């Protein structure tokens, strides 16, 4: 039951926190939460770490690789995107600052 309690509380926390993210940031939000579900890689690590049969080695290693793509790619690409949003807003009227990067 403890785990179900945690789950239900997490649902409320999730809705609370995420409904505050503005529409403009929805793509980075999605790619960041996407990276977060890469945490299933832990399952792959545990499978491989404690495995002693051929097929489990294979399944687990693929799961680790998938999870790592998900985590590393997800966080990096989110970082790239957010870097674009974080640039200093230009003062109104002042016109000709050219985009770098």
């Amino acid at each position, binding site marked *: 039951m403890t785990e179900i309690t*945690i789950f239900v509380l997490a649902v409320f926390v999730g809705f609370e*926190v995420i409904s505050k993210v503005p529409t403009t940031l929805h793509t980075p939000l999605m790619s960041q939460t996407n990276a977060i579900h890469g*945490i299933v890689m832990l*399952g*792959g*690590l545990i499978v491989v*770490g404690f495995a002693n049969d051929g097929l489990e080695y294979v399944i687990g290693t693929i799961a680790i690789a998938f999870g790592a793509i998900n*985590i590393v790619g997800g966080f990096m690409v989110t970082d790239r995107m*957010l870097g674009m949003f974080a640039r200093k807003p230009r003062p109104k009227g002042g016109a000709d600052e050219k985009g770098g990067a």
Partner: protein
Amino acid sequence: MSPLLAVFEPGGDAATALYIVAFSLFIIGIKMGTHPTTAKRGNLIAAGGMAVAVVTTLLLDGMGNWGLIVLGLGIGTAIGVIASIRVQMTEMPQMVALYNGVGGGAVALIAWAEIRHGISIGEDFPLDSLIPVLFAGVVGSVSFWGSNIAFAKLQDLIPTRPIAAPGQQVINAILVVAIVVICVILALDHESPSQALFVLLLVLAAILGNLVVLPIGGADMPVVISLLNAFTGLSAAAAGFALDNVALIVAGTLVGSSGTILTLEMATAMNRSVGNILFSGFGGAPAGGGGGTGEEKPHVSIGAQDAAIKLAYADTVVIVPGYGLAVAQAQHAIKEVADELEKRGVTVNYAIHPVAGRMPGHMNVLLAEADVPYEQLKEMEEINPEMSRTDVAVVVGANDVTNPAAKNDPDSPIAGMPIIEVNEAQQVIVIKRSLSPGFAGIDNDLFYEPNTSMLFADAKQAAAEIASEIGNL
């Protein structure tokens, strides 16, 4: 195998405490994502949480097979790094679909390994871990295959238009029933569940994932991607139940909530239910016949120079981007137009429909890439009341989301869908390659309104020409 690294007892207090640290960092990270100035740091904090979770797991007592672990981590990291550096901002929807898919795939594989492991121990499989395993396997597999199809569609590897076989609803329904039946059989037989049946379950879920996403057309992708994101999150949470891992439960649930919120928002923005989007491809029935048949209705066509003059002598301009902007990679060229206009003292804003593009917030990312200030990106509800005071609205690569028929014609297939009310503006310029209908397969009444001028061209080229014409005025 490597006792030197054994620091934490699996399931022990120390490991659990660190997992709690990890998910707290995720929550803080997402919370900081509510504002563009803190979001980047928030993302790093969430990544730090992930590092804590991974390192904790690697230090569990009894972990072995380091060669394979390093191999998996190495391959995955290399692919992730290369992909995230190379991807263009216009390709973000397919990138997210792909990452989502591999996440779902990992969940399904872990569920399979858990079943094998449980069977090999030969003990009774407790229902409170068997049920989450079954859920994780089915939903992970649906998500993996569904996301791959979504990726292939977005990447134009397979046609974006809806592909539907006759009787598909029936086949889907049969698949769902079969999946439920197999789950029940496996659960009833929890003392020694059959591995073969479990693999069959994964295969049926895979077919279902393919069949559900194949008939869904491009413009419905924001809903599909959000939904698949929610699925992968929930399947990860289920894997957490099976593995008794709080970090997985909380992280997966957060993602499930986020995906659910986005799915509902996207569906609302199209005035359709999620079920309707998933199970009745609307481009799938072009029988309505709006698609390019018959003679052309009268419309006004202009060139870049005329457009430049209209824009340059306006006080307020609103730019309405759509997926066509992404396809043409026109975001930088549009920004140049805006820069030229601002030099002349014109106020420029951008009106962004929630489902413009192929994923939630897609247009915002593209415009941010082109250095458009955050403050100029206006949401639909914010900009619509301003429309009647707008001198010129420029529609770039958007179609259905500007169609006044959604408001005026109760018989229109998109009736009731909230739109950006560009028709309220004094003048409208539509940059588009032809009069062809949008995704919904219906004509856009906007094109034939007396205050609308059509500029038939590639969005990027047209914007570049307009910018230089304004500069010459």
